[in-house]
């Protein structure tokens, strides 16, 4: 084994910016939890907000709030401008070709459900297949089970390997003329695996199978280009991106979205309504029934601007250093086993410790100010595959430090002492 890395010898920088400076932008990080400095290592569940996001939301509520798309008065125009401006920020962030392709939803879950109900359900027949992987979050499993239940379609699961990678050879055997959709996670929330989705997409394209990507965990940690990916749908949530909860995005190819029937009905998604006939609005509003989460969209745009100012590539590079350091340090703890050892991973380390249940670890770490997630991470089939009830998961963001990883390691040692 090489000489261990020392956190003090590592420069914590995102590009040229010191992480210490970055942390000052996040007021929530500067607090004591149970008498210890907070180490927030639960970013895969939800990330924290920079002051600029909090300010954008409060500025909107203090100065600009009104309903969108419906008033000639000044506030309504301001709200509309900012809401639609946010759409353009998102478009550019994922490089969609048109802002008509950006649908605001409540989050990843709702985006996937929209596609399930409006695109897949009307098109599938008994015996058709929907293909997902064994790595999926429940949000990319349950909507397809619904579709299958009501249509007689069959849900097929691409297996994963011991490393936690999606089995590409198996996938090639499984996809075929019966397949009506491939719905795949881009990055696994439970294990951190980065799925080489390009390979999967190119096979699917050759066979004319539409592809949906669950990008909830990918978008916060890498630059995503939906045109380069050549996927048909891409879904993500703002709250994993340092933005607010309750808002997310469905990207869809314009041609496909145009052909899809609306999902929910109500205000905003119509042009005219009479009791005889209703005509629907154009994209993207056709899929945004009712008053949307205006402040959410504005907050998401502020979060994206913040991340872009830091630069997604620099963020990815620093997070990969954190991952490398954490993996190395955790592996030195006896009885600790890392679950998910894919070649390419986002900054997520899932692990179990012999003789100590993850739930106890969660409590002991919390008593030392460390927030991690313990449980099945909404990916129960992944736990079943590894024959474990749960894992402890530390997930990092660009504002985490090497010292916080040391704090985690020290706390894990103390947990062993306490319970073993």
């Amino acid at each position, binding site marked *: 084994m090489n000489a261990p890395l020392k956190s003090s010898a590592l420069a914590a920088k995102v590009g040229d910016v010191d992480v210490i400076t970055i942390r000052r932008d996040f007021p929530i990080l500067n607090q004591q939890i149970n008498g210890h400095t907070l180490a927030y290592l639960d970013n895969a569940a939800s990330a924290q907000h920079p002051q600029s996001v909090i300010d954008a939301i409060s500025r909107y509520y203090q100065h600009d709030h009104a309903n969108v798309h419906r008033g000639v008065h000044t506030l309504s125009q301001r709200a509309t401008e900012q809401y639609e401006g946010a759409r353009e920020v998102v478009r550019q962030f994922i490089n969609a070709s048109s802002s008509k392709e950006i649908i605001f939803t409540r989050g990843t879950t709702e985006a996937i459900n929209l596609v399930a109900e409006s695109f897949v359900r009307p098109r599938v027949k008994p015996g058709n297949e929907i293909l997902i992987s064994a790595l999926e979050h429940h949000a990319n499993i349950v909507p397809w089970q619904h579709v299958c239940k009501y249509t007689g379609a069959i849900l097929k699961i691409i297996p994963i390997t011991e490393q936690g990678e999606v089995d590409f050879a198996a996938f090639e055997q499984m996809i075929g003329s019966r397949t009506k959709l491939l719905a795949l996670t881009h990055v696994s929330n439970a294990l951190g695996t980065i799925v080489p989705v390009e390979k999967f997409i190119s096979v699917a394209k050759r066979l004319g199978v539409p592809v949906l990507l669950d990008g909830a965990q990918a978008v916060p940690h890498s630059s995503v280009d939906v045109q380069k990916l050549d996927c048909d749908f891409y879904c993500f949530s703002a709250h994993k991106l340092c933005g607010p909860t309750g808002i997310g995005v469905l990207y869809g190819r314009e041609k496909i979205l145009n052909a899809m029937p609306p999902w929910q009905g109500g205000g905003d998604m119509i042009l005219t309504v009479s009791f005889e006939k209703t005509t629907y609005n154009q994209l993207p509003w056709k899929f945004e029934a009712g008053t949307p989460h205006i402040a959410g969209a504005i907050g998401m745009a502020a979060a994206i601007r913040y991340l872009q100012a830091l630069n997604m590539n620099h963020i990815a590079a620093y997070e990969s250093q954190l991952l490398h350091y954490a993996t190395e340090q955790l592996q030195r703890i006896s009885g600790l086993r890392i679950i998910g050892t894919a070649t390419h991973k986002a900054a997520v380390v899932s692990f179990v410790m012999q003789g*100590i*249940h993850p*739930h*106890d670890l969660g*409590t002991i770490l919390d008593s030392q100010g460390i927030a991690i997630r313990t449980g099945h991470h909404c990916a129960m089939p992944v736990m079943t595959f590894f024959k474990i*009830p*749960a894992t402890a998961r530390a997930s990092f963001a660009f504002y985490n430090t090497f010292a916080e990883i040391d704090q985690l390691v020290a706390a894990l040692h103390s947990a062993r002492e306490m319970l073993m």
Partner: protein
Amino acid sequence: MDLKELYRDVIVDHNKHPRNFGKIDHADAHADGHNPLCGDQLTVTVKLDGDVISDVKFEGSGCAISTASASLMTEAVHGKSKQQFNSLHDQVHDMLTRHDSTIDPMSLGKLGALSGVREFPARVKCASLCWHTLQAALQNQNQLVSTE
């Protein structure tokens, strides 16, 4: 928040060496318990002599609190009638959940070690799962008990 209050020596010991761990063949009653939040699951099997619990075992997987609670429970309820069990169940529940509980933990013997749990609201369900499960078994509801 003092962790030593939660992970007392008795709890650590019963987690490391759970008593009455396993399954009774030809049990008179059984029930499964499940805590979906953390994945804890356990099965309780009971042998009855008339109305009296003559043997009880548990198996499954869970955290230290849930394992120790189940282990302590199997020791405590041995030889108790259903009615005595119900009364003990209610006292333990009161001790686990109520800050103003009037139950003196000392009066419950070793079970008193579980009193620290009430300071950790996220962990109360871990400690109470086995008790609900045994109660269900005794009421002959051989069904799944869930904490959610």
